[in-house]
């Protein structure tokens, strides 16, 4: 049986606004789960329902087989790291970390021992007597992490904990969070709208949109086999490019035809596409699914070049719209004529359901 189970979870505000329509998820002990989605997709609401900071409209939440939806937040065995850190400004770092332990009426020496332990893990040992206002954003974040792990929770909740940090610190904090997670073997749920955070941290990602789960999967599954067009365009930086193409069955071969290019599809796809003969479907190709050389099938001209160091991102026009292509040919210039080829890692979606065909 799974460690944490969210069953048919629903949240409706003011009887009309459906923030979370249906949420089913099972989490194993020690897993790092990331809720990913654009703002307003219901990911934070779902987390707050787990924390008990938001009432549940329908469904149930189980931790260790026990329903927690009628418990106060303090009785749920969870701890949380907030977006603003929520490190209490009137307490020293020590008191912040020790607060929950003091409420549990642990003996003083034991509290001190635990605080010292987590302070070492979070690298805030020398700041214990300071007030939060005397710390930098990154240090405050560490205090919030220390406070959260000091209580040894059954489940860690993290609500966009890195979004207030500057870009460089965000990346290093991310690594630290992952290390702490691995060392402690804790079960964690992490909410973010930043797909690179999600990909780098998660064991499994839950992609949400408009109150429903679009896809649950490992970072690789989410990236390489997105189940819907939403996931394909939300994940990846730059995101996937989409083309409207028509399916044409010509004898044995199945062709995909766009305004400016036409090609026969990979073998595995032929059977699935036969039923779409004459219909329009959506072809999705990630920026790195293209080849740039003299033999490609799409002729075009480079409009914008964005160097990224190890690779460059170029904008080219195909079928009347600009698409982004990633290539390691660093010497490409604006205005240069190129031919784009397509590797067979492309994906096709049903235009009506927006679900993946293959």
């Amino acid at each position, binding site marked *: 049986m799974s460690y944490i189970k969210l069953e048919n979870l629903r949240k409706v505000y003011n009887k009309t606004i459906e923030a979370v329509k249906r949420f089913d998820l099972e989490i194993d002990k020690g897993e790092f789960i990331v809720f990913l989605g654009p703002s307003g997709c219901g990911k934070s609401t779902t987390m707050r329902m787990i924390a*008990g900071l938001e009432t549940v409209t329908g469904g149930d939440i189980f931790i260790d087989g026990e329903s927690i939806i009628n418990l106060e937040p303090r009785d749920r065995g969870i701890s949380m790291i907030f977006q603003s850190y929520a490190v209490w400004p009137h307490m020293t770092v020590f008191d912040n970390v020790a607060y929950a332990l003091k409420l549990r009426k642990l003996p003083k020496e034991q509290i001190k021992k635990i605080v010292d332990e987590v302070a070492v893990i979070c690298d805030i040992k020398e700041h214990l007597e300071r007030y939060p206002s005397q710390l930098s954003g990154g240090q405050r974040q560490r205090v919030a992490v220390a406070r959260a792990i000091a209580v040894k929770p059954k489940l860690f909740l993290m609500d966009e904990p890195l979004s207030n940090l500057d870009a460089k610190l965000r990346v290093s904090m991310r690594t630290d969070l992952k290390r702490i997670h691995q060392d402690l073997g804790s079960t964690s749920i992490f909410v973010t709208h930043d797909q690179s955070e999600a990909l780098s941290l998660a064991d499994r990602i839950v992609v949400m949109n408009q109150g429903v789960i679009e896809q649950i999967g490992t970072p690789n599954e989410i990236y390489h086999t997105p189940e819907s067009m939403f996931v394909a365009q939300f994940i990846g930086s730059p995101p996937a490019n989409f083309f409207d193409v028509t399916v044409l069955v010509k004898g044995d071969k199945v062709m995909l035809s766009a305004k400016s290019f036409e090609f026969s599809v990979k073998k595995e796809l032929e059977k699935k596409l036969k039923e779409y003969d004459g219909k329009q479907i959506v072809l999705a190709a990630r920026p790195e699914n293209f080849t740039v050389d003299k033999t490609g099938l799409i002729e075009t001209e480079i409009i914008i070049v964005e160097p990224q160091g190890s690779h460059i991102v170029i904008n080219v026009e195909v079928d009347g719209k600009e698409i982004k292509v990633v290539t390691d040919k660093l010497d490409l210039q604006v205005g240069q004529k190129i031919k784009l080829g397509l590797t067979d890692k492309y994906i096709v979606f049903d235009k009506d359901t927006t679900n993946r065909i293959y």
Partner: protein
Amino acid sequence: MDKIKTRKPFWKSPYMLVLPALIFYLIFWAGPVFSAVKEVFTSVDGGFSFETIFFLFEDDKFLPALGNTLLFAIVSIVLQFLLALALALFINRNFKGSSFFLFLMMIPMAIPIAAVGIIWDTGLTESGWFNSILSVTGIQWFLDTIGITDGAILWKGATGFKAIMLLVLIDTWTVLPSVMIIILAGLQNLNKEYSEAALVFGATRFQTVKHIIVPIIKPTIITALLLRIISGVQVWLIAVMVFDFDTVPFLVERIVYYNKFFYTDEYFKLSVAYSIFVMMLVMTIATIFLSANKKAERGRT
């Protein structure tokens, strides 16, 4: 090494900028205070003397007035703080109709103190509106039955401690919204995640208020209470409106009483002496509050 000379002539210095304010205070504040002090320390025939000070301390009503004033100020500030905090926390939950409730609450603030006095002066007579409400709602009957009262309460017959408490309640009715609104402003500026973190990390709602919310908005609370205690020390009008002069003495009530009902120089000087005493009392209290505020903010600015 050469010293770099940065001193500017006085008329170019920053002090010039505060000079107008300084002149204003000298003329309209320091001046009157100085002449008041001078008034107290000169005798009726013009020489330096302590006789007004002795007169003040010999006044039978001085100690009762001081005691009543302090009792009133302290009880009302405690009561108003607790009620205002509870109401502010309640309204801050943003339930349906909370803004209408807030509007209703603000109404007493719009009524001038003299009118408040009239409302309660007529309300607290034996057959006034307050007793009518008690009787219509059955509260009177209930109180009679359980033996707390025996017939309509004669509010105006209250003396001593009871009279002060009655005035505290009337004052609270009037000023509660103004205290509440300041605390509410503090609560609305407070990051919600502070209290949510407390709830998650094991605190009950009461502990969250006590350990997290109140300490964090302490500077706001101190400001609100400082304003309240200053006007608490200066209470007189409701006392006079409800109980008339010279029944429940307060320090400021004494100033008005001696100034308006006695026409000798001695009593004029006595009322000035009371004024200076009140001023010193207010300044002492303000200093205590402000240093408490500094302590509250230490280490976290």
